[in-house]
């Protein structure tokens, strides 16, 4: 056997090995999954499902792509850059229907939208009490909860001040109201030495879900088994993160978001439990991720009343209950 021939044979053998390992790897479904913000405790369940091997056990190779301030998951999903994504509230799901983008909500990992208002202690008794106050909200919020609050509590557009994700203006102005996030605002205020009141929109009738797992109608139709495996593993991930040892997931979150701290992780995780963000009434009977027709209808009706949608939208196309409410992981 000439040297060349021997070399060729060796290459062929190596090639066959590579090909074999490639087919083995291809057995796992590759999924890119976008979260709605930089890595943080609010994504603990997904990271837990990765580090705890829950996705791998379900035959799925998941890449988590963290979101951020200027990243719009709804647009990335619609454009096909993501297979699954977390969207922040039920309006995102209704927007897909309104714009005829074939995306569908398959589960709600936050039963309550953590959006809230933050103000100095005692400055306001309730949201209705905030008439005339300066209210800092982000541009996106003007198109979401704000019209609902205007309609329900008689606030007005000229109260809006631009919110730039800094707590400094609130420190300076005792009468200011700022948008907040119930799982972080508490310790943010404490860190800035503010004694703050939080007004959780959920308590005021904002019945939006949050952390809504969304994927394409196409995937739901063509490969429901993959969607089911992904959802079951994610649900189990959340149970493990909230009730088990979160340290491995926390480590991965800190690796994805080096500015974050263990202290914040612990505080946010505690707040998620305290305010019943992931686990609330419906999840107690149906499991994490639960959604109900009644809740979607309630939200849609309120949004129609606030003038955000026409009354003839087929809002039921926004979601499917096929992958939740099965008591998985309970």
């Amino acid at each position, binding site marked *: 056997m000439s040297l060349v021939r021997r070399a060729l044979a060796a290459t062929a053998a190596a090639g066959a090995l590579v090909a074999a390992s490639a087919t083995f790897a291809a057995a796992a479904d590759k999924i890119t999954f976008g979260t709605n913000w930089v890595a943080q405790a609010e994504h603990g369940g997904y990271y837990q499902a990765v580090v705890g091997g829950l996705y791998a056990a379900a035959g799925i190779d998941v890449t988590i792509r963290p979101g951020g301030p200027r990243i719009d998951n709804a647009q990335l999903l619609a454009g096909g850059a993501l297979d699954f994504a977390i969207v922040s509230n039920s309006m995102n799901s209704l927007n897909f229907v309104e714009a005829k983008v074939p995306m569908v909500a398959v589960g709600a990992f936050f039963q309550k939208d953590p959006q809230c208002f933050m103000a100095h202690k005692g400055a306001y008794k309730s949201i209705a009490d905030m008439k005339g106050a300066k209210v800092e909200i982000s541009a996106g919020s003007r198109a979401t909860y704000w019209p609902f609050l205007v309609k329900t509590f008689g606030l007005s*557009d*000229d109260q809006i001040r631009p919110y730039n994700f800094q707590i400094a203006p609130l420190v300076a102005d005792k009468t200011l109201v700022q948008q907040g996030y119930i799982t972080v605002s508490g310790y943010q205020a404490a860190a800035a030495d503010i004694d703050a009141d939080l007004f959780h929109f959920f308590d005021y009738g904002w019945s939006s879900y949050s952390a809504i797992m969304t994927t394409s109608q196409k995937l739901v139709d063509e490969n429901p088994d993959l969607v089911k495996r992904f959802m079951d593993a994610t649900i189990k991930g959340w149970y493990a993160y909230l009730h088990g040892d979160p340290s491995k997931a926390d480590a991965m979150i800190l690796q994805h978001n080096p500015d974050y701290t263990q202290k914040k992780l612990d505080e946010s995780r505690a707040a998620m439990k305290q305010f019943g963000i992931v686990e609330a009434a419906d999840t107690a009977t149906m499991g994490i991720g639960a959604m109900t027709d009644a809740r979607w209808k309630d939200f849609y009706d309120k949004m129609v009343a606030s003038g955000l949608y026409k009354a003839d939208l087929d809002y039921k196309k926004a979601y499917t209950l096929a992958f939740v409410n099965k008591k998985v992981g309970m």
Partner: protein
Amino acid sequence: MPVVRRVDPHERIERILDWAMPICIGILAIAGWFAVVHINDIPHYVLPGPDLVGGSLWNDWSTLIDSWWVTIKVCVLALGLAVAGGVGLAMLFTLSRWIGRSFYPYAVILQVTPVVAIAPLIIIYVDNLFIVLLICAWLVAFFPILSNTTQGLNSADHNLLNLFQMCGANKWQVFRLLRIPGAMPYFLTGFRISGGLALIGAIVAEFVAGTAGSGSGLAYRILESGYRLNIPRMFAALIMISVTGILIFAVTSFISHLVLHRWHESAIRREN
């Protein structure tokens, strides 16, 4: 007896071509856009066709025109302030060399400061949001006027300066009769650049500073349309911005023509 100027047929064709060529290119581009979208079956939420965008422009016209009015108000006011500020400062800088030397570097600092970065600070300092927008747009728009006008005021013909001196003209006369007319072409160049920049400034300002009250400019419409996945409306808003830019350019060019067409080389016909 009126003098009839014979119009050269060649010149007439040239004039028609000035209009016809850009329009042809525009029609071709829209046709190409339509073809690409429909042949490749691109979903409307990725790239809407011109038909959808046109439809959105038609259906949402009342919303869009309200927003356009908000944006154009900021833009025109900022441009006016940029002219006042730019020309005023340029005069000051030329009249007093010491003031010029001392302050010019600071004008450059204002020019290079990214408005996106300082807008959040301006919001904290200034209570009225409309004024915040105005300051942001003005910051972007004023420097070309300042720098061009300063250059113009310093570019008076030295022979003419000597002549004025010989005839015993005082500083103010030199300024009024020689420097200001001489600076006009420079100023107007700066003015045309700033017209476009004021529009960009108004929109960028609104993106970072937002708007309060019921008045929401085109930037908010773009944000909102993106959020609602209403991409055709987003494109419609972008088209309105482009058309506004062209209008501003046309108006500033026309003003420039009015001022210069009697005497300046750039506007009068060569005789040979």
